């Protein structure tokens, strides 16, 4: 790009007026002329703006001379006009002289814009209390929506019971595979490690009292009743809950759910019910995998650390671990699954029609599911205590 270097020759400069690479100020008897030079283009705009800011222009800059101006783009014209508020509103074009046709058009366009522009009021920021109120009511709306969706899912389930043909077996199988079979490796690995960690921590304490064998009691009950269900539910919330939201949400973006509706099918039957049922079937199975793996991990470390041989471990486990603990753990799983699947599907079905909303909904699904799972687990703990289970 041609970019004439060097300051232009100063014709008759008044005292105290500055010349730069971009312009020269020429003071004449009754008026001051600002003579533009060089290429006024965006890459140099920061320099131009600084030069204009350092310029102490007399109020009566009456003429802008563009005859020596190489080129000007609209950004530079904007900066020029912002620096010269008096000229911005001037209706007559007589103060602009010597501009080439192309440069003149650009300056004129920007002048029109500035003359037409009105300040846009800043959107009002709500006060903290109002914001809190809005958030609480939004939370209430969210919970109400979930309950509604749960009801709609139950209705769909009822319809499927009355007419078993309506159940989408193929979709159900796909979901069983994706949410169940493919989750086994990660569930197994994590619960195995959790079993090791719990045993290690309990073992450190138990060793002090020579109560090594009782570690089996603790880890057996703890893992099957609490840790395995919670850990597996959290993994499934992150895996399948997020996947449900992302799948259904992107189907909504591409209008697939609308297509399902216009074909006379129900998205609840076609999309939601298979996912909810699949998750309710597979989560107890995954929890069982988790039980087995965490006890395996415990047994693996109990030998070298606590001198509890596998035979002694298993024998003690038979005495100490009442099957009701295992059943309590397994019984929680379908409830967790229902909550995770309903939240995941509902967030996907109601997501806004843009990519940002989809990302936000997916994140929200994971957070909501995990919070809901832990809350429910606390409720279960209190209930089971009261029921003496």
């Amino acid at each position, binding site marked *: 790009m041609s970019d004439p270097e060097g300051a232009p020759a100063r014709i008759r400069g008044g005292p105290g007026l500055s010349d730069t690479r971009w312009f020269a100020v020429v003071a004449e008897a009754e008026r001051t002329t600002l003579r533009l030079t060089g290429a006024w283009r965006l890459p140099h*705009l920061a320099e131009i703006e600084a030069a204009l800011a350092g310029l102490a222009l007399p109020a009566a800059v009456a003429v802008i001379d563009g005859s020596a101006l190489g080129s000007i783009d609209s*950004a530079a014209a904007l900066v020029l006009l*912002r620096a010269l508020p008096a000229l911005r509103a001037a209706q007559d074009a007589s103060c602009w002289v010597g501009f080439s046709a192309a440069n003149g058009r650009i300056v004129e366009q920007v002048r029109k814009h500035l003359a037409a522009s009105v300040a846009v009021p800043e959107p009002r920021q709500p006060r903290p209390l109002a914001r809190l109120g809005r958030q609480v009511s939004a939370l209430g709306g969210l919970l109400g929506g979930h309950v509604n969706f749960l009801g709609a899912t139950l209705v769909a389930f009822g319809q499927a019971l009355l007419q078993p043909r309506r159940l989408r077996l193929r979709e159900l199988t796909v979901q069983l595979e994706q949410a169940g079979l493919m989750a086994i490796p990660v569930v197994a690995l994590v619960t195995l490690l959790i079993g090791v960690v719990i045993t290690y921590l309990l073992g450190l304490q138990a060793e002090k009292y020579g109560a090594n064998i009782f570690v089996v009691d603790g880890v057996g009950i703890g893992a099957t009743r609490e840790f395995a269900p919670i850990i597996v539910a959290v993994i499934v919330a992150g895996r399948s809950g997020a996947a449900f939201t992302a799948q259904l949400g992107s189907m909504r973006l591409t209008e697939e759910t609308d297509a399902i509706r216009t074909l006379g099918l129900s998205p609840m039957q076609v999309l939601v019910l298979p996912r909810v049922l699949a998750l309710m079937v597979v989560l107890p199975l995954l929890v069982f995998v988790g039980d087995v793996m965490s006890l395996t991990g415990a047994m693996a470390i109990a030998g070298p650390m606590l001198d509890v041989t596998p035979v002694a471990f298993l024998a003690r486990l038979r005495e100490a671990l009442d099957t009701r603990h295992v059943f309590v753990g397994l019984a929680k799983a379908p409830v967790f699954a229902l909550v995770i699947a309903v939240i995941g599907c509902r967030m996907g079905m109601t997501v806004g029609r843009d990519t940002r909303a989809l990302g936000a909904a997916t994140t929200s699904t994971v957070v909501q599911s995990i919070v809901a799972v832990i809350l429910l687990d606390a409720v279960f703990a209190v209930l089971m205590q009261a029921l003496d289970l």
Partner: protein
Amino acid sequence: MSADAPAIEVDAIVTRFGAQTVHNGVSFAVARGTLVALIGGSGTGKSVLLREIIGLQRPSAGRVHLLGTDMWSVAPDALDAVRRRFGMLFQDGALFSSLTVAQNVAVPLREHTHLTGATIDALVALRLWQAGLPADAGAKMPSELSGGMRKRAAIARAIALEPEVLFLDEPTSGLDPITARGFDRLVRSLVDDLGLTVFLVTHDLDTLRGVVDRVIVLGSAQGQGQGRVLADGTLQEVMAVDDAWIREYFSVRRIARDGS
């Protein structure tokens, strides 16, 4: 670089996808300050050619000079410098959905200039106005805009850095005829008032009829054109070319108009 060197120079471009040849020696040049349209049947690789010109997809052979830079043999930092000198409007606008319209327009300005916040805000307002958007559109999210306004917002972002060349991929697709004609006028004014060079891919005959200086027709690799430029000139010149596809292309419209 001289000012009258062509803005875009495409020289003997060959594009192959596996065994399938799409372009087989496409050559043309686009002069500065003109509005040129690229048309062709589906499968003639219009969008692919556009991506090759702006450096997103490498052609199998041939050269592309954009603003005097050889797009496919230049160093990455020189390529970045050229990228600041052209703008691209993608088919659906490709606005960043997590930012407001004003923030979208401000992205290139904040990234590539050292201007103050107040100046950037004023520049954003100017760009929105130049793209024909009302001032209050700036505070909206892209998802709150209609299709036509989204394209205008994307234009505002594409011209933010005062590009010398603007590429448009099917700018009027999905717009109603009234909005589309308004968009045509906007593009024309960018050429006339700001001196931009505009290169657009289109299917819209009204755009060709209304505002375009020159039409380049890409031929299908299987048909008569053999993957080369089938015709190149003003609309009248192109319509006079004796080719089956061109005849059919323009006669579709005649039927619609005459109702026969």
